[in-house]
C-alpha cells in the first residue's frame, strides 16, 4: 500500500447524500478480476448527464472528493474504492461514511476524512466559487486546509500510523501468528468444518 502523509490537489463538490456503492460503481462493472481499470465505471449512470459535476471542465483533474452524508452505503464491494482511486482520487471528505466502505478505503490507502456537515458545506462553497482552489488533506497534522481555512479532523492513531507507513495488515498479523495457532488449539471440537464434505 502506498504511504499517505499529506496530499494537495483540487476538489470536486458532490452535493448528494446516501451515495451508495451501486452508484459509485454499478454491479455490471464488477466482472473484472483485477484491481485496475474500474475508472470507467465510476458513477457510471450519473456520468451520462453532461451536467454531472464530474463532467464539468472546471473540475477535471481533481483528486479530493467532497461528498454528502452517508457516503459508501450498501454493498461491501471494494471495487468502489478501487474505482475512486483508479479515477485519481486520493481522499474523500464526508460528514458520515458507511462502516464497510470506510474500512475498505483504509485497507486500500484511500483516505476518508470525517468533517462536520457545516464544514463540508463550507468547502463545497469555496470550491464552487473557485474550482482551482488547492485543498490539502494532511494526515500527519490531522487537518484539512484550503485558502486561509484550517479544519482539524479526528482519526484513530492506529489507522493513521498504518496509512502513514503504508503497512499491509496481513504482514502485521503474521508477526503474531503464534497467537493464532495457540487460539486454534483451544477451539471447541463442536465448531463446524467445511471439509470433509458431509451431506
Amino acid at each position, binding site marked *: 500500500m502506498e504511504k499517505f502523509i499529506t496530499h494537495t490537489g483540487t476538489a470536486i463538490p458532490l452535493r448528494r447524500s446516501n451515495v451508495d456503492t451501486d452508484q459509485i460503481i454499478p*454491479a455490471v462493472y464488477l466482472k473484472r478480476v483485477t484491481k485496475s481499470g474500474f475508472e470507467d465505471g465510476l458513477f457510471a449512470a450519473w456520468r451520462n448527464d453532461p451536467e454531472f459535476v464530474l463532467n464539468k471542465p472546471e473540475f477535471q483533474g481533481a483528486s479530493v472528493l467532497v461528498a454528502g452524508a452517508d457516503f459508501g452505503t*450498501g454493498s*461491501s464491494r471494494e471495487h468502489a474504492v478501487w474505482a475512486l482511486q483508479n479515477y485519481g482520487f486520493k481522499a474523500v471528505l464526508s460528514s458520515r461514511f458507511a462502516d464497510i466502505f470506510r474500512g475498505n478505503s483504509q485497507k486500500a490507502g484511500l483516505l476518508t476524512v470525517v468533517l462536520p456537515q457545516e464544514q463540508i458545506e463550507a468547502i463545497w462553497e469555496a470550491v464552487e466559487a473557485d474550482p482551482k482552489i488547492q485543498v490539502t488533506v494532511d494526515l500527519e497534522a490531522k487537518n484539512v486546509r484550503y485558502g486561509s481555512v484550517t479544519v482539524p479532523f479526528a482519526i484513530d492513531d492506529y489507522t493513521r500510523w498504518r496509512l502513514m507507513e503504508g503497512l499491509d495488515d*496481513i504482514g502485521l498479523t503474521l508477526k503474531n501468528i503464534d497467537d*493464532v495457532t495457540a487460539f*486454534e488449539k483451544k477451539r471447541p471440537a463442536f465448531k*463446524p468444518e467445511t471439509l470433509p464434505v458431509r451431506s
Partner: protein
Amino acid sequence: MSDRTKMGKTLAEKIWADHVVRSAEGEPDLLYIDLHLIHEVTSPQAFDGLRLAGRQVRRPDLTIATEDHNVPTLNIDKPIADPVSKLQVDTLRANCKEFGVRIHSLGDAEQGIVHVVGPQLGITQPGMTIVCGDSHTSTHGAFGALAFGIGTSEVEHVLATQTLPLIRPKTMAVNVTGKLKPGVTSKDIILAIIAQIGTGGGQGYVLEYRGDAIKALSMEGRMTICNMSIEAGARAGLIAPDETTFDYVKNKPHAPQGAEWDAAVAYWKTLQSDADAQFDKEITLDADALEPFVTWGTNPGQGLPLNANVPNPADIADAEERGAAERALTYMGLTAGTPLKSLKVDTVFLGSCTNGRIEDLRAAADVLKGKKIAPNTRMLVVPGSARVRLQAEGEGLDKVFIDFGAEWRNAGCSMCLGMNPDQLTVGERSASTSNRNFEGRQGKGGRTHLVSPLVAAATAIRGTLSSPADL
C-alpha cells in the same frame, strides 16, 4: 462495546470475547473467524494477493465457496454466454482448486446464494464469527452468530490468517414488541425499522433484535431481518439462539453429532444478553401496529405502509432529506400524494438472500395458487439455492408459479443486483423481495419498490402494489 467488568454482557460482547486472539492497548482486537464464505465477485483479487506474496489459505477447512452473484438463472447446463462473466466464474473455480477450497458450482445441488447455502448445510451455527465479501453476511446473525460483510482486502486477510483486526462495535437493542397481524411479515418489521432509524442509524453498532415478535419468528423470518441490518447502516445484526434455532440446525449435514451436539447446545444456551447487560442504545418497534411496508424512494430508509401516499418532499423539515426525497421522486417517476397502491408494476421479483428461501416461496405460492398473473406483468421466481429449488419442486411449488404465469428460474442473486442478464430496463417498475432500491440497482434506469413475498405475490395478481388483504 466498552469494557464493563461488573455489569452483564450483551450477546455481541460474549461472542466477541470468545474470539479475541490478541488484544493490545491502542490496537484493534485480532478476532478469530470461524467460517469464511466466498463467491466469484469479491475474491479474485484476494487470491491474486496470496499468490503474489507466496501465501496459502490457512484454513481451507473453515472456508467454502459458491457461485451466485454473476451466474445466469437460465440455460445453466450451457457455458456462460458473457465471456467476462465466464472468466470471473472460471477464475473462482481455478482459485478454489489451486488453494484446496471447497466449491459448489453451477449445476451442483448445494450451489446458490452464499447466505442461503451456509444455513442449509448447517455450517452456520450459534456463537460463531462468520465473514464473507458480501454485505448481506449479516443474514447469519439470525443464528446468534456474529456475522458481517468485508471487502476484498479483508477477504485476503482472512484467507491468509483466519483472523481480522477489528475495532469493537457498539451495541443497540432493537425491541420488537407485540404480535404481527396476519399478512404482516418479518420483511415489514425490518423495512419499518430502517424507515425509523434511517440508513445511517445503525452505523458503528451491532443490532440485537429482541422481543416477543422476534421470538415468534421462524429461522427464515429471522434471517430476513438480520439480512437487512446493513441497510440500516449496521454491519451486523443478531438474534439470540433458542429452541427454534436448535431445531433448525439439528440434523443439517454439518451440525454437531452425538456428544458434540450436547456440548454445543450447552454452550449455545449461554448465548443470551445478560439481564443486567447495558446496550449503548435501545429502540422499540410495536409489531401490533405494523402494516405491510413498501419503499417509495431510492434508499431502503424511504419506506411507508402500503396504504400511504407518495410523500411530499415539501413536508420534510431536514434539508438534506428533502433534497434526497426530491431526487428520489424524480428518479422513481412519482408524484407526491399518489396512493402507493395505485402504482402499476411491470416486474415482480421473488428471490434473493433476503427472501429466496423455501418459506418465502411457500408463502407467495399460497397467495398465487389457482390465479393468473396480471396482464403486461412479468414475474421472476428465483430460488435462493439449488437445494431450495429442488425442495420447492418436490412440493409442487414450481407448478403453482408456472401455472400462474411466472418464470421459474435456477438459483442465484439474479435481479437483486442485476449483474447477470436478469435486469430491469430503463423506466421499468418492480416490486422486489430483495434488499436494495438504489438507483439502477436492478438494471440501469429501473425503479425498485422493496416488498415482502406476500406483497410481491398480491402485486403480481393485481398488477399494482397490493397486499393479500386487497384480493
